[in-house]
């Protein structure tokens, strides 16, 4: 070997494969303003549509008069429910098995509901037209409080469901009831509570909030009358699902629908579902024969498309005096708004909320969820979390703190005492899940050692004494959170969307020169798939990541997949990528054996090619194999080097983490300072540590926002009072705390590369850490539970209620 021969380390590094902090390849275009978003799509003759929206939360629509609007220069059409009825599209199915008005049909059920769609030659004319559409409303009593939804005299919201005593998920108890979902053993759980030495009970609310991606929801629909084909550019987290849904509801052959999701500016669950804007733009294009663009503004995004959370969780834990948990009982009142448009796998009306036993070994548990209608926007999407998992994690993590307080135990010690032990995995939870792997004690202890948890508790004790002596007006809280997520939906045995199993896919095509293109059924919205997917392939087949182009989002070219949300891309598509790469590698091995004139069993894979065992100089690089695949394959073998994999995961993955938030609160103003935030994440095998860190930073920032002030709030008459970024808390870099990240690695035993997914963990684990910090700060003044969000005035209110402020 001469000096120029690269070392094994150099050859590995050259691949920039798994474990490499590879810079994001997509950032080259994003940082130079060269991304291509939906609003960048400009087609010849393109029209613009915009909505007339309801000012009322609940009203009868007496009449819609478009006469004046049609006189506005540039306004071409005003579409109403009556127009849509002619094509049978006045209502559309939701992912949750309900139906939703596309445009107000006789009634409006929430403020800013879509009432009419004005189509014009430009956006300005469309807005001018909106202001000229006259709608006559007869206001009806609004139902805002979900706890009053099933009152005897509650107003009837959904007249279309009159007399329907059964919904998509079983019997309905009341005219505003959507479903009841129960899991677990009620008798056993009731017995555990009867025998319990200690119990706690608290109503823990997770308020309504919104994913609010930087780019709002939008689309361009272009119908070609001659070909009978509809092309839709849209902000879709799941483009293939959109194609199938459009085919089913618009009765267009699926091959005549082309869905393209170009660059997406954040999704966070907001861009999973189908919205009236998509339907109206498509119908408008079919009617006018011209392309039609619809772009939501910020107020529309916050008030009409897909809120998240709004779960009110009455939570009880049974335990022994020593702090061993013996039972969990949770009842959830779920406020779904006017239509059940939750984006959950179809059979799961409350998502995977039954992960609510968390990281703890509960011998028995029982859960029931009641979904109700209110006069609020529909949605219930998974805002940077797997379906309803963040609600579950908040519920159990808050409840464990409340139990610790009642027992006089340290919350970290209580958790250590009740964790599922490493030897119990795979672990069958009382509410039906099989946790694939975990090592909770190690993660928790690492968090406690790194942060010097014991010293922080000592400081807190001293500070409390100083507060009592009147020497300080600041109180200190430690927020412990230990979460277990359930992500990677999912196995076909328990997950589907409208009957389509939740597999995902990858197709890899290697080119003769040792480069290739890989396409997936997922769709990045900022996750960095173009970077990380290439890294998996690089390590699997030994071709540099830079030589692999990753393409997603075009349903004509990408293999069918269920899209990106619920941290499913790495657990499902990541596995498909590895499996497709292994098919490539298997064929490459046969070609190498033929060229090196040995049996393929005599070859071993060595970083970037195949080597004959025991004969290190007999080596063929993957680059050369790619060339050979196109000119000298073994006799009888097809030329080319391509593979496709559709991966149906055998199980979910269960990432976990240990977080600690250290917070100081000025009781006189309620102003908090996050002094320190430590986040340890275990997402199994780490593909790109830099991207993981970025994901954790982003998710923690969203968790901070949600816990400390971000909410969609309605007044008593159903007006949204947080409809813009003036009032909806969107922290800037100035408010955002500094994040300390750390990790342990417990690979998933069933995933081809052991990866578990990470994008949503920090949101799931972060919210309880912040809320527990606030609650911990106030606990010594006598409080048990203070509801989120913990913004300044509410902290002051808490201090005042506890007598800490005059």
């Amino acid at each position, binding site marked *: 070997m001469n000096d120029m021969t690269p070392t094994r380390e150099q050859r590995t590094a050259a691949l920039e494969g798994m474990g490499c902090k590879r810079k994001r390849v997509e950032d080259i275009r994003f940082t130079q303003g060269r991304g291509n978003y939906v609003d960048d799509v400009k087609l010849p003759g393109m029209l613009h549509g*915009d909505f007339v929206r309801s000012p009322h939360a609940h009203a009868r629509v007496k009449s819609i008069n478009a006469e004046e609007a049609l006189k506005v220069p540039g306004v071409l059409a005003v579409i109403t429910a009556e127009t849509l009825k002619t094509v049978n599209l006045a209502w559309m199915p939701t992912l949750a098995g309900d139906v939703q008005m596309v445009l107000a049909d006789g009634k409006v059920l929430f403020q800013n509901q879509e009432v009419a769609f004005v189509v014009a030659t430009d*956006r*300005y004319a*469309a*807005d*001018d037209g909106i*202001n000229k559409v006259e709608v006559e409303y007869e206001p009806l009593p609004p139902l805002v409080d979900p706890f009053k939804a099933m009152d005897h005299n509650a107003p009837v919201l959904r007249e279309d469901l009159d007399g329907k005593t059964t919904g998509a998920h079983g019997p309905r108890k009341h005219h505003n009831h959507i479903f009841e979902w129960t899991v677990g053993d009620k008798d056993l759980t009731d017995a555990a509570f009867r025998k319990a030495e200690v119990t706690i009970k608290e109503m823990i609310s997770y308020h309504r909030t919104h994913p609010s991606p930087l780019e709002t929801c939008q689309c361009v629909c272009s119908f070609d009358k001659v070909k009978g084909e509809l092309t839709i550019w849209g902000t879709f987290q799941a483009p293939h699902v959109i194609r199938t849904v459009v085919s089913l509801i618009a009765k267009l052959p699926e091959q005549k629908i082309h869905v393209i999701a170009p660059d997406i500016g954040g999704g966070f669950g907001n861009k999973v579902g189908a919205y009236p804007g998509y339907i109206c733009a498509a119908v408008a294009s079919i009617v006018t024969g011209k392309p039609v663009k619809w772009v939501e*503004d*910020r*107020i529309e995004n916050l008030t009409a498309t897909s809120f998240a959370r709004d779960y009110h969780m009455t939570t009880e834990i049974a335990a022994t005096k020593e702090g061993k948990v013996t039972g969990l009982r949770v009842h959830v009142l779920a406020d779904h708004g006017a239509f059940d448009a939750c984006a959950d796998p179809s059979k799961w009306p409350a998502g995977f909320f039954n992960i609510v036993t968390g990281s703890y070994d509960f011998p028995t548990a029982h859960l029931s969820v009641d979904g109700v209608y209110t006069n609020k926007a529909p949605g219930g999407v998974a805002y940077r979390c797997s379906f309803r998992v963040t609600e579950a994690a908040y519920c159990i993590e808050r409840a464990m703190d409340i139990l610790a307080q009642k027992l006089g135990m340290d919350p970290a010690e209580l958790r250590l005492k009740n964790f599922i032990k490493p030897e119990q995995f795979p672990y069958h939870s009382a509410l039906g899940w099989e946790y694939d792997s975990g090592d909770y004690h190690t993660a928790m202890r690492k968090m406690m050692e790194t942060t010097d948890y014991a010293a922080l508790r000592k400081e807190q004790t001293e500070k409390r004494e100083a507060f009592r002596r009147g020497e300080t007006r600041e109180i200190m809280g430690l927020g412990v959170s230990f979460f277990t997520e359930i992500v990677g939906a999912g196995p076909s045995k328990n997950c589907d969307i409208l009957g389509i199993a939740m597999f995902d896919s990858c197709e890899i095509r290697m080119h003769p020169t040792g480069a290739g293109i890989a396409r997936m059924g997922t769709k990045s919205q900022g996750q960095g798939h173009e970077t990380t997917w290439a890294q998996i392939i690089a390590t699997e087949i030994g071709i540099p990541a830079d030589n692999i182009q990753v393409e997603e989002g075009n349903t004509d070219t990408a293999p069918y997949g269920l899209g990106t949300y619920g941290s499913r891309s790495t657990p499902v598509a990541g596995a498909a990528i590895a499996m497709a790469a292994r098919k490539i590698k298997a064929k490459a091995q046969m070609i190498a054996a033929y060229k090196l004139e040995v049996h393929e069993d005599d070859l071993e894979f060595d970083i970037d090619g195949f080597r004959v065992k025991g004969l290190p100089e007999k080596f063929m690089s993957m680059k050369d194999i790619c060339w050979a695949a196109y000119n000298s394959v073994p006799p009888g073998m097809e030329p080319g080097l391509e593979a496709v994999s559709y991966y149906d995961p055998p199980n979910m993955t269960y990432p976990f983490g240990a977080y600690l938030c250290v917070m100081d609160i000025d009781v*006189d*103003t*309620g*102003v908090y300072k996050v002094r320190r935030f430590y986040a340890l994440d275990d997402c199994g095998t780490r593909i790109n540590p830099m991207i993981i860190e970025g994901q954790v930073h982003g998710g923690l920032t969203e968790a901070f926002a949600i816990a400390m*002030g971000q909410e969609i*709030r309605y007044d008593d008459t159903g007006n949204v*009072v*947080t409809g813009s970024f*003036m*009032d909806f*808390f*969107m*922290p*800037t870099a*100035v*408010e955002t705390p500094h994040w300390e990240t750390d990790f342990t690695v417990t690979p998933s035993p069933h995933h081809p590369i052991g990866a578990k997914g990470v994008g949503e963990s920090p949101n799931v684990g972060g919210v309880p850490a912040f809320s527990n910090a606030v609650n911990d700060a106030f606990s010594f003044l006598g409080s048990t539970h203070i509801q989120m969000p913990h*913004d*300044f*005035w509410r902290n*002051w*209110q808490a201090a005042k209620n506890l007598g800490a*402020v005059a």
Partner: protein
Amino acid sequence: MIPGPFSYHRPASLADAVKLLADLGDDARPLAGGHSLVPMMKLRLATPAHLVDLHDVADLKGIRGYGDTVVIGAMTTQHELLASGEIRQTLPILQEAAALIADPQVRYCGTIGGNVANGDPGNDMPALMMVLGANFRLNGPGGERDVPANEFYQGAYFTALEPGEILTSISIPVPPAGHGYAYEKLKRKVGDYATAAAAVVLTMAGGKVATCAIGLTNLHETPLLATDAANAVIGTSLDAATLKKAAAAAEAIMAPAADARGPVEYRKHVGGIMVMRALQRAAGGTA
């Protein structure tokens, strides 16, 4: 979020601007930095038929010191205030407050004239103008006149400006050398209006407060001068009891709206705290 139709005018002189505004009447609005007006137009809460952009009117720009007075052109941006050596030396409280207004991008465009003349109770500069005893020079169809800041604000978005009149400059008497000052602003985040804010300018003599003015932002439909609160601290060494008295006197004139920043009770309470903190910090900074 799309404004209605309007005509755009860009006069090159003050005379032309005044004439345009007079001719166009109520349908016209002057455009300075646009940070209050343009969002209102996007929501169609404001639908002026004409916008008269003042950016080309050279007479409206610049900061000039005249010994005991500083004159600031209405189109001076917050950024220019922050960069001005004259302001740093004579009116440092303006720089402290300007740095708390929104973010750099807004401050490059937002003007002091727009901030004080729009009558938005959330704006920071009006309370400072009252505390500093500023005079506003107005120009309109009836000619030129001066109005003290203390008499300018009549209600939310209602000011002493007559139809067709614009604010052209602000003259501010220079506070004595060695004065203490502070602007305490509680806000939820960068870019937000104050939940409550208090401006203080004071002088000390022999360890006691000699003169004092206290202004309040966003605690009423207009900015407020808290005269009783200021009187309560004159002649004292700002002991704890006096601070509480001043806060109580200030709270007595506050009438904030309940909004997402908090209920009335909270906003008044933290308003009092801002007064106490501003007094303490201002006194600590005297020479």
